[in-house]
């Protein structure tokens, strides 16, 4: 069974089709890198897959179920453009809140554990608004991984990360793949993404220009996919 299956999805903004007949699959335990120029539809696709908006046509299944089903949402982790933590709350309060929302058996214990794993235990009681950008990003990573999701949807996760946060995220993503979790990530940082990816999908003007396994040529030359299948 595919962990993520996108079948004939169209998404319209008014009359403009931002996604056109997208068909993609990500097998369980795989890492699918969504690449494409600005405006290609990567964010719209990820947000639609995450269930933040409904497709105009077509269907999306995550672990065989609709993205809006409660069980699916429990199995899904999302990192978008925002860090999705509250500035007025402390790091531990934020993670405990999400732990409660995800119904974890001991939200506080999980929160402490993830603060340690992301190197934020020292500032656990600090308000997020006082955090540096890198610390905020690491907290966002902790928030997304807190409930041990089986499917991770990451929208440009390496953007604006400092080197420490990139290292933390890459380590966590490798651990997730080793634990047979599925990752779908959109990115412009091809080198970081292709090092992790088992599959690649190139989007161009809302359509899939290429979808297939990640090959050694792609890893050695990140511009290869654009040159071969894209707009050069």
């Amino acid at each position, binding site marked *: 069974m595919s962990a993520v299956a996108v079948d004939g999805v169209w998404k319209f903004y008014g009359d403009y089709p931002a996604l056109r007949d997208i068909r993609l699959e990500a097998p369980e335990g795989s890492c699918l890198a969504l690449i494409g120029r600005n405006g290609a539809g990567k964010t719209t696709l990820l947000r639609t897959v995450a269930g*933040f908006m409904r497709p105009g046509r077509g269907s999306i299944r995550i672990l065989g179920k609709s993205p809006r089903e*409660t069980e699916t*949402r429990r199995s899904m982790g999302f990192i978008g453009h925002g860090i*999705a933590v*509250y*500035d*007025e709350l402390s790091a531990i309060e934020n993670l405990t809140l*999400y732990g409660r*929302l995800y119904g974890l058996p001991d939200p506080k214990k999980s929160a402490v554990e993830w603060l340690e794993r992301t190197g934020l235990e020292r500032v656990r009681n600090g308000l997020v608004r006082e955090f540096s950008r890198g610390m905020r990003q690491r907290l966002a990573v902790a928030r997304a991984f807190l409930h041990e999701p089986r499917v991770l949807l990451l929208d440009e996760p390496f953007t604006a990360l400092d080197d420490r946060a990139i290292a933390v995220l890459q380590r966590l993503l490798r651990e997730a793949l080793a634990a047979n979790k599925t990752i779908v990530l959109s990115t412009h940082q091809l080198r970081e993404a292709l090092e992790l990816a088992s599959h690649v999908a190139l989007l161009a003007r809302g359509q899939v220009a290429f979808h297939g396994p990640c090959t050694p040529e792609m890893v050695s030359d990140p511009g290869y996919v654009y040159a071969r299948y894209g707009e050069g």
Partner: protein
Amino acid sequence: MGFFRQVLVVTSKDLRAELRTKEAINASLAFALVILVLFSFAFDPLEETTRAISGGLLWIVFAFAGALVFNRSFTRELPNDCLDALVAAPVSAPALFLGKSLANYVLVLAMELIALVVFGVFYNVHWTQFFWQLMLVVALGNWGMTVIGTVFSALTVNLRLREVMLPLLIYPMLLPALAAAMQLTGYLVTGTPISSQNIAWLQMLAGFDVIFTAVSLVLIEHVLVG
């Protein structure tokens, strides 16, 4: 996690965030007090007509000051895209809505209770004469305002002119509830208790609350997921 536990988690999160910043409650309370004091200069508190319209004045103040709280309800989720994380979490949309509504209810009620005391002082009305009946009217009127305010706050959260759009949308919807609350408050502060003569207003207010709570719970998933 059970439905009511989800509701309480969302409510406590909103109240904790608001108590840290006090953005909505301070603005709402300051607005209510200033308007009440200004109105008291405009109308002679010793005149009978002033007492007759004081219920209406009070609910106009509640409605305008309440809109400041409702505006913040979903806007609070915009920085850092927190709304995405809430929508992605395995929390039912009705639980999210009720949680936010309860937090708004508490904040607006706090503003109303303080404003009521000021109202009693400046308008020479006997607001404590039928205190519990007045509290019932405030509780029901507040819930009606809160339900409509919260659902439209969710609906307008992504609009550029949301601060303008929210009042424009909620006041026409609130007309039946506000009319009933104004009438009942007018009776109570002028010494007329709720009786068979005017209980239809109370029934209308309660009916409004039940209907719009049910409609909001059904529609909120469609409001949050476009």
